[in-house]
C-alpha cells in the first residue's frame, strides 16, 4: 500500500467518498467463506474454488405458491404459440431466470452477483441459485452459468428482454467473452402480462401480479429490490452476511412467481373453457394473444360458441365488452362461421361499437347484397357517433358519411336499373 500516495491524495483533496470501514489490511480481500454460515445447505461447486456458491430447493407436488400450484406435466409440450420453433418444446426444456445486480444502472460497472434459475423435472420444480462469491473470479461464475444456459433451449424471464439478458450479455462482453444470449429463444412473461392485463390491473409489476393473480404474499424475510445492491456490496467489503438470506429469498420468490405466472397464463391459453369467470377485458386480451400466436383455434372456437350461448354470463357493461364481441366476430368471420360472426357483432353494436356496425354494414352489402340494411347500419353508426361525448372525431364522421353517400348512390342506381 503506497502510504505516500495516499497522503498525497489526501492533500490533493481527493480522499472524498466513503469513510474507510474495517481494517486497512482487509481491503485486498481473501475470498470470504462466511456465506456458508448463512446457508448451511449451500455448496461451493468443485472446480470453481470458492468463487461460485450455489443453493438448491425443490418444490414437489402439493406445494402451493399462494393459491397456485407449480405442478405441471414436465414432458408435455408448452403452449405452441410461445416460441417459434419447428419441434415442440417440453416443460423440462425451459430455464427460468432472474438476476440480481450490484447497481440499478445498466452501465458496464454493474455486476450480476446472483442468478436465480428454475426448471422442472419429474421430481417437481427446482430452484438453483448461483452466487458470485468472488468478483475477482467472475470468469468462473460466467463459465458456470454458460454451462447451465447451454443445457436449456428456451429461457423464461420477467422483463428479461430489457434487463436480465442484456446485463448478462454485458458481463460476458466486459470479460472478453462472446455471447449469443440475446439471440436465444426467450419468453418474456412481462410482455405477455402487459398484453393480457393492461386493462385489468393497474400494474404489471411482478410484486403486484404475484399478489393479485397468484395470491402469494412474501414473508418478512423479503428484502425490497432497491436495497439488494447495497447488501451485496457490504458483504464483500465487510463480510456482513446478516441480510443475505433476505436477498436470496427475494430472488427465489421471483423465480417461483415467474413459474407460477407462466403456468397460469399457459393454462388460460390452453383452456378457453376456463375463461368463463374472467372479465371482458381479460378475455379480450387473451383473444388478441391467441390470434397473435396462431394458437389452437378449435378450443377457442368452442369457447366462443359457449360464450355466445351464455351471453348473460358476460359483463356487457364494461368498455372492453364491445371490443370483445367485435373481435370474437372477426375470429368467427375469418373461420367462415358467419352466423356466429353476425351474432357477435350485433351484440357489439348493442354496446355501441361503431366498428361492429361497419362490419355488419359491409356484410350486408357484400355477402347479402342487402343495401337497405347496409345503410341502416351506417345510420346506426352515425347516430352512435353523434351521441358520443367528448371531442368530435371528424375523421370518423367523414368516413361514415362517405360510406352513406356511396350506398345511397348504389341504391339509386339499382332502383334505376330495376325500373328499366
Amino acid at each position, binding site marked *: *500500500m*503506497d502510504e505516500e*500516495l*495516499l497522503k*498525497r*491524495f489526501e*492533500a*490533493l*483533496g*481527493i*480522499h472524498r*467518498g*466513503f469513510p*474507510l*470501514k474495517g481494517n*486497512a489490511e482487509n*481491503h*485486498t*480481500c*481473501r*475470498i470470504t467463506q462466511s456465506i456458508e454460515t448463512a446457508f448451511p445447505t449451500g455448496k461451493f461447486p468443485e472446480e470453481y474454488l470458492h468463487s461460485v456458491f450455489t443453493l438448491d430447493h425443490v418444490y414437489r407436488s402439493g406445494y402451493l405458491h399462494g393459491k397456485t400450484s407449480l405442478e405441471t406435466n414436465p414432458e408435455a409440450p408448452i403452449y405452441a404459440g410461445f416460441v417459434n420453433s419447428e419441434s415442440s418444446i417440453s416443460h423440462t426444456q425451459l430455464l427460468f431466470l432472474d438476476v440480481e445486480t*450490484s*447497481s*440499478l*444502472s*445498466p*452501465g*458496464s*460497472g454493474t*455486476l450480476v452477483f446472483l442468478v436465480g434459475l428454475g426448471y422442472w423435472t419429474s421430481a417437481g420444480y427446482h430452484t438453483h441459485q448461483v452466487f458470485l462469491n*468472488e*468478483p*475477482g*473470479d*467472475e470468469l468462473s461464475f460466467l463459465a458456470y452459468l454458460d454451462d447451465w444456459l447451454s443445457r436449456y433451449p428456451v429461457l423464461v424471464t420477467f422483463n428479461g428482454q430489457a434487463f436480465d439478458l*442484456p446485463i448478462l*450479455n*454485458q458481463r460476458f*462482453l*466486459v*470479460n*472478453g467473452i462472446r455471447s449469443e444470449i440475446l439471440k436465444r429463444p426467450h419468453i418474456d412473461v412481462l410482455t405477455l402480462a402487459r398484453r393480457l392485463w393492461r386493462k385489468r390491473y393497474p400494474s404489471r409489476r411482478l410484486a403486484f401480479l404475484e399478489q393479485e393473480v397468484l395470491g402469494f404474499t412474501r414473508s418478512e424475510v423479503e428484502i425490497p429490490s432497491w436495497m439488494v*445492491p*447495497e447488501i451485496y*456490496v457490504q458483504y*464483500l*467489503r465487510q463480510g456482513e452476511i446478516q441480510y443475505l438470506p433476505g436477498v436470496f429469498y427475494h430472488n427465489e420468490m421471483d423465480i417461483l412467481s415467474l413459474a407460477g405466472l407462466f403456468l397460469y397464463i399457459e393454462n388460460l391459453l390452453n383452456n378457453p373453457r376456463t375463461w368463463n369467470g374472467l372479465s371482458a377485458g381479460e378475455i379480450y386480451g387473451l383473444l388478441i394473444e391467441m390470434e397473435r400466436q396462431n394458437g389452437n383455434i378449435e378450443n377457442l372456437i368452442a369457447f366462443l360458441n359457449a360464450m355466445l350461448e351464455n351471453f348473460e354470463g358476460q359483463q356487457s357493461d364494461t368498455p372492453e365488452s364491445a371490443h370483445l364481441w367485435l373481435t370474437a366476430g372477426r375470429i368467427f368471420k375469418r373461420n367462415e362461421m358467419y352466423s356466429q360472426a353476425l351474432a357477435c357483432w350485433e351484440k357489439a353494436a348493442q354496446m355501441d361499437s361503431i366498428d361492429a356496425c361497419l362490419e355488419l354494414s359491409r356484410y350486408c352489402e357484400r355477402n347479402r347484397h342487402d343495401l337497405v340494411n347496409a345503410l341502416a347500419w351506417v345510420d346506426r353508426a352515425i347516430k352512435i357517433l353523434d351521441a358520443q361525448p367528448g371531442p368530435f372525431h371528424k375523421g370518423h364522421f367523414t368516413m361514415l358519411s362517405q360510406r352513406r353517400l356511396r350506398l345511397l348512390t348504389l341504391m339509386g342506381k339499382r332502383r334505376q336499373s330495376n325500373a328499366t
Partner: protein
Amino acid sequence: MPISKLHALLETWLSHPRYSEGIRFRVTLPAQPGHAHPLPPTIPNTLRQALEKLGIHNLYLHQISAWQSALSGEHMMITAGVGSGKSLCYHLPVLHSWLETPDTTALYLFPTKALAYDQYQFLQTFLDALPFSITEKQSLKKQIATYDGDSTPSQRKRSRETARLLLTNPEMLHYGILPYHPYWREFLAHLKYVILDEAHIYRGAFGSHLANLIRRLKRIAALYGASPRFLLTSGTIGNPLELAQTLIEAPITLIHRDTAPKSERLLLFYTPPLEDKVAGTRRDATAEALSLAQELFDHNVQTLVFLDSRQGVETALRTFRESLPTLEGVEAYRSGYLPQDRRWIEQGLREQTNRLVFTTNALELGINIGGVDAVIMIGYPGSVAAFNQRIGRAGRKGQPALGLLVASDNPLDQYIISHPDHVLERPPEKVILNPDNPVILYQHLKCASYEKPFEEGESFGALSWEAIEPYLDVLALQGCLRSSLNRFIWLDKTQPHREISLRGSAHPTIKLHLQAASTPSLLGEIDYESAYWMVHPGAIYLHRGDVYRVEALDLESSQASLIPTHSDYYTEPLLETQVTAYKAWKSQDFSWGTSACGELHLTTWLKGFKKRSWDDHTVLEQVSLDFPPLNLETTGYWLSLNARTVKRLADQGLWSNSPNNYGPNWEQQRQLARARDHYTCQQCGARENGSAFHVHHRIPFRRFSSSEEANRLENLITLCPRCHRRLERAVWIRSGLSALRHLLHHLASLFVFCDYHDLGSFIEPRSKLSHNQPTLVFYDSFQGGLGYALELFDRYVDWFDSAYEVITHCACQNGCPSCIGPAPEQGSGGKEEAKAILRAILEVQPASYG
C-alpha cells in the same frame, strides 16, 4: 474589399487626429497563392465524381499528403491555418474506407457541438454528390449521426444501433459511450478511425483529461478487437507533433505544409492614447474599438469583433445599438445562445447579411462562416495561436482584408503593441498539458475500472502497471474497487463519471443556492477555487446585475447559500498564501540568489474581508473570518534574492530615493513622535543614547497627497538607526517584489501557453523556500500542476528581459496598469525598486547550474 479601399480607409485614420496617435504599427501580409495539385489517381472514381460535383477539382498539398498517409494506415496530425480545407484531410480517407467496407465505423470528436453540426452538414452534402441512386444515398445518410446532449433518447438508441459515422464531443464519449460500451459493441468492434478536430484546444486541464479519455477509449476498443487510426487536425502551434504524441501515445506523421491560398491582409496594432500620462491611464479600449467598428460598418466592411468575455460581447452590442438602434445586420455570438440562433448568425455571416458581429472565442474555431473583410480584436487574446486563428477569419477568397488589434491597458497588451514581432515573427507557443497529473489520472483510472476491471500487469496508455497500481490500491482502500485474485473490479452502486468535469477544475463546482422565501432555488455555479474568494461567508456577490450576500459556504458538500440584499458596500477578501512544503526539482544559484522549480504545497488562508463603499471605495469595516484553509498541491517556479543582494540593492535604492523634504511640520512631528515613544526604539527597545533616533513613516511619505497627512502621529514610529534601516530595506524589497510580481504574471503568457488565471503568484518576504530570504513564487493554479510553471524555469531569462524592457520604457512615474500595476493603494509604487532588482538579476551570469 479591394485593397485600395482598405488603404484609403487607413489613410483617413492616419490623418484623423482621433486615431492617428493610436496606430502604433502596421504591416501588410502579402497574399499567398495556393498551390493545388490534381486529384491523385488513388482516389477512387466515386469520390472523385463527388468532389468534382462539389467544385473541388484540385487538392492542396496537405490534403494530398493526408490522403496518402491515411492510405498507408498511419496516425496523422495535420496543422494548417483557418479555412485551409483541413477537414477534407480526414473526410476523404474515412469516406473511402466506409464506402469500400460498409461496416467500418468512425468516431469524430469535436470540441463543440457547433463544429460537429457543421461537419455533419458537410457529410450530408458530400453524400448527395455521390454518383449513387437516391435510395442508396438515403440509406447511407441515415448511417451518419450526431450524438450530443441535445439528442433525444430514441435518437441515441438509433445511433447506438445503426450509426457508422458518429460525430460527437469528448463529454459524450465520457458520459454516454464508454460507461455503456457493451451497448456500443457493434460500433466499437468496427472502429477504424478516430478524428480529433481542432486539437490545439486540448491543452492544460482539458487536454490532460482528453489524453486520458483516449487511453480509456483505446482500452475499450481493444476489448472488442479494434485498433483505430487517429487523425488529428490543429491550428498553428509551436509543438504539434509533441501534442499529438502526448494525446495518442503512438508514433504519428506530421503534415504541416499548408498550401491553401491566403488573402492579403493589412494588420494594424492600435492602442488607445493616454489620458493621464503620469497615472498611465488610457481611453477605454472597447470604446475605441467600437468607434473603429462604426467606421468600418459605415463603409460597408463586413467585420467580426472579438472580445474576451460573454459579458463583454453583450455590453458591446448594447452600446453599439444605443447609438444606432434601427440597424440590421448587427449581432452578437457566444455560447449560451440557442443552437438555431447561432446557425442563423453563422448563415448571415456566410451570406453577408450580418455585417457586424461581436463574438467571443466561440468563432475562433473552424465553423464555416466564409471569411469576413475585417477582424477587430479587443485585447490580445493571450497567445500567438489564438491571434492567428482570429486573424485567419479575415479574408474572403482572393479579397484583401483588415486585421486590427486594439490593446487594453494591461502589461501584456502594451508589450505586444510595442513588440509586434512577438506575434508576427516568433514561433507560436507550445501547447502544455500533463496527462499524468495525479488528480486527473486518478479520476480517469476510477472511470476506467468501472468500464472494465483491471488485470495485473495491464498498462494504461503508456503508463506501466507499476505506475498505475498505486492508484488502484487507493481506490480499493476507498471501497470503490475490490482487489482480489490479481484483478481490480468496480464494486459500487454509483457511477464515477458524473463527478468529473472535463474542462473544469479538479473539484466539483459549488452550487449557489438562493435562500429566498420557502423553497431554495439554484442561482448559479462557481468553480471551487474561485468560491474561496468570491463567495466566502459574508461576501457580496453579483450575478447578472443583481446583488446578493453569501450566508454560508460549505466546501465539503459543494454548496453556498445566498440571499438578495441591498448594500452600500462590496467586499474584498483578505487572503494570505504560504508555502507549507516544497521539493525543488531543478535550481540554479547565482550571485544574487536562486532560481528554482518543483513541487509546492500551498495553503491559502481566508483571514477575513474588507467592506468597501461602492461610492468612494473607502474601507468601512474589516471583518475577521475563521475558515478552513484551501490547500493546493501543485508545481511552481520561484526566485529568491540572497541577503547580501537585498542589502546592497535596498541601501542603494534608499540612498538615491530619500526625499530631503518631508514638509513644513516635519521637525515638529518628529519631536512629538520621539517623545510619545519615550525616546525608545519601538522595535528592539534600545534607548536613545546621545544622537536622536530616526522617526519612520509607516506608510511611505510619497504615498500621501499632503505632508500633513503623511506626518500624522499615527503614521510615525521611533526606531534606532539599525532597526530603521532594516525596516526600510524590508519595505523596499516588498515594494519591489510586489511590483515585479504584477508585471511578470501578466507577461507570463508570452512565454508559456496559458491564461492569466492558470497561474497564481505571491511574494514571501521571508520564505521557507529560500532560508527566509525574500522570494517571488509562481504556481499552476490547478491541483497537481499542469507544467506551466516548470516551463517558466526554462525561459525565465527571456521573461525577465521582457519585464525589464516594459519597465524601462514605460513613461509613468510611480507605476501604472501597463507596467507594475496602478500606483498606490493596491499597487505598491515600487517601479524603481522593481527595475533595480531586474537589473541585478539580468546583468549577472549564472554562477552554477543545479
